[in-house]
């Protein structure tokens, strides 16, 4: 796996529809209505938030390189993949589907990795009867979590030692087709401090970006294996943060509460002293998160059908084109809502939009 194929794959889904920077926002897990809507619209949920520390300068360098390699062309803020670009992605990802699950695991993944790193260091030091060591993770909440776990097995330490070893051995074995060594080398024992991504990259003649993606890819697979086999990995299960990861922005969740109190957009705008367009952004965001959310108060059934018909005709997600095909009274907000609802359904049900239109 390399970053080129991931980024280019993402770009290929957005060509002619969005600017190159949308990919950057998705990777960083930006919590804006636009980004959250985009991942649903273009089926990029699995990449959401998988590189939260990516900086813009790095991203721009990648794009420049892609252009130099003649993989993409960019003009007037629009970009397309060249034939070489498409061939490169296909070759790279052939028979190797990406198993990220960013929408589900973003943030949880980093927490899980850090907790695992600190737990391994702690357990290993205890096994070697070394009670003095400096934790390799600074975060206080993670330190407390690991302390709590160690305390829980106060009476029966070997159970924890044995259990964690077996959990890790089993799951690494399960993933042995993958470059699981890269992850293992980032773990610290009593005898050996783990390597940084940069160091692994040097040893493997790779880049730290590639190592980052490989690591997150492995973590996501571990998380889903653990979640799908409840009880099989009792110790790793305890490391997963059970707190529901809310992708709704704080502000949008306040709007949601007011909507549930049957307030109108105008009411909410007045109460919160926010622009109507901001409240509309919130509503679109809520709709992307909750497929049971009813768009009916904002779009009636007849209009919904008409918008969908135009959508199918135009075969694009560019709002401007669709808006031009509809009466002037139809707002962007209404189109976005329908688009959101429609794309959620098509993803959930394997693209059977005809059933939705009925």
């Amino acid at each position, binding site marked *: 796996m390399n970053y080129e194929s991931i980024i280019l794959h993402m770009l290929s889904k957005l060509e002619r529809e969005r600017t190159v920077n949308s990919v950057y926002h998705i990777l960083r897990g930006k919590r804006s209505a636009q980004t959250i809507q985009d991942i649903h619209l273009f089926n990029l949920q699995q990449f959401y938030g998988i590189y939260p520390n990516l900086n813009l300068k790095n991203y721009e360098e990648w794009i420049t390189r892609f252009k130099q390699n003649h993989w993409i062309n960019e003009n007037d803020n629009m970009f397309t993949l060249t034939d070489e670009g498409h061939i490169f992605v296909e070759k790279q990802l052939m028979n190797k589907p990406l198993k990220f699950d960013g929408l589900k695991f973003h943030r949880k993944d980093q927490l899980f990795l850090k907790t695992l790193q600190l737990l391994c260091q702690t357990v290993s030091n205890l*096994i070697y009867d070394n009670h003095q060591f400096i934790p390799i993770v600074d975060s206080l909440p993670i330190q407390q979590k690991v302390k709590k776990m160690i305390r829980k097995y106060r009476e029966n330490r070997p159970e924890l030692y044995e259990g964690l070893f077996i959990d890790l*051995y089993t799951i690494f074995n399960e993933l042995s087709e993958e470059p699981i*060594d890269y992850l293992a*080398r980032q*773990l610290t024992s009593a005898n050996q401090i783990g390597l940084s991504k*940069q160091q692994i990259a*040097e040893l493997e003649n790779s880049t730290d970006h590639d190592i980052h993606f490989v690591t997150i890819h492995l973590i996501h697979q571990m998380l889903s294996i653990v979640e799908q086999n409840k009880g099989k990995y009792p110790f790793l299960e305890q490391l997963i943060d059970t707190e529901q990861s809310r992708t709704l922005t704080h502000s949008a969740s306040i709007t949601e509460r007011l909507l549930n109190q049957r307030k109108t957009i105008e009411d909410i705008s007045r109460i919160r002293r926010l622009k109507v367009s901001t409240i509309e952004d919130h509503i679109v965001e809520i709709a992307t998160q909750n497929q049971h959310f009813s768009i009916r108060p904002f779009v009636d059934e007849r209009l919904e059908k008409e918008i969908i018909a135009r959508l199918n005709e135009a075969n694009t997600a560019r709002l401007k084109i669709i808006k031009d095909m509809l009466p002037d009274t139809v707002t962007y907000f209404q189109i976005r809502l329908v688009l959101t609802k429609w794309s959620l359904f098509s993803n959930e049900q394997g693209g059977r939009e005809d059933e939705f239109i009925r």
Partner: protein
Amino acid sequence: MSSSVNLEKALTELFGYDSFRDGQKEIIESVLKGKNTLGTLPTGSGKSICYQLPALLLKGVTVIVSPLISLMVDQVKLLKYNGIKEVIAINSLLNFDEKEKAFKQLNRYKMIYCSPEMLQHQSFVTRLKQLKISLFVIDEAHCISQWGHEFRPDYLRLKEIIQVLNNPTVLALSATATPDVQKDIIKQLGINMTSFIYPIDRTNISYSICHVNGEKEKNDELIHVLNKINAPTMIYFSSRRMSEQISALLQKHFPNRNIAFYHGGMTQEDRLLIQQQFMNDQLDIICCTSAFGMGINKDNIRLVIHYHLPSTMEAFIQETGRGGRDGSHSVSLLLYSRGDELIPSQLIDLELPDDYLIEQFIKLKRNDDPLIETMSLTETQERFLNYHVEKLSQESLTIEQIINKIKLIRNERNHIKKNSIYKLIQWIEAKKCRRVTLFESFQKHVRKPDYECCDQCGFDIFQWVYHSSNESNYNTSWQMILEDMFNRRWKNEEEKITTRVD
């Protein structure tokens, strides 16, 4: 005396050391008697024990003022490592909730580390006032003095804070204070102090300077030296980019050694890993900037190389002082190419605000103009301007007078710092004993070295023989890593044997 017996016992019990090093005990006894104390001790000689031991013996709380967050954080980690848990660092790394929580529980701690800026926060000081502060420690006390190389205006406000906190015993510590700076520290604090001035020269370090011509020659020389000497080595750089570049270059030349870089631009996680690998002898060479904090001890560094010129004599003494903390021989090598002084000199010019920024700031400040937020000043520039504007506003001056005064103050600061570089160059060019010329401004007599002295006195780095015995072997496959982590290798062997017997 019975008290001294107790002190030794406490040292062993709390910190695991058998005996005090030069000066520690005298300073601790003075502090325990409640005397305001000024102490100078060399870097790497256990300065922090001088307040940590009294802090644990005294009733009440000890406040420690430290200029750098990384220093505080490392100190707290090291104390916790030693099993001393009632310590906290209050700084900007804590978020609002954490700070609130810490303030509420402040009475739980024996040692509270903070920056001088933090002591300007009313809520923090109010909370401190409710505690019994028995000892107030000023670490890196040379920051108080305008003649010091690292003057920080907020250090001058400590005098008032000490009074507000009901005059606890004060302990000021420094490893790099000239006699002038020592006098100034006492003057600025406005209290009587008992001084314990110990020589700061390190007798187990040999000094060597190598003149080269340009970067290519510098790199050749570096490789030449490292080819000869395979020992735990630090190489200091003044730029992040160069630390990475040279690290890559060396790795190519020495594929069998473990080499890494470390600088402030890396993520916190990576910094922790690299630092601990170095402590754990997994790295042979580290290419770093001054961001590499050494609050966490590694005592077997044998070679400290300066690839770039440090900014001051004091910084040089501090950085070379990281070598040989175990008391065994360590070597300092400075690679100098004519013109190297330009980098630190330019850095100095950028540190404090230029004429334009001073004028803009004062004009906007006078009108309470919110545009002041958009000026993009560095933290240091903002601190400098705020401090002096506030101070000068107590005098009745016109806006032009204030501007001119601040410009003068800035020029003076820049002059002091550039003078420090000039002194370094003089030191490099002098055809005299390195050791004597390096330390003579700090102390009257420079001691006799334990090993070879310096290149001027006949020390030749290429004649120095050192070979590290440790060959670290990385586990690379996940099976090996897990077996080592959970200590299973031995068990597996045993199982194999039993199956064979069966």
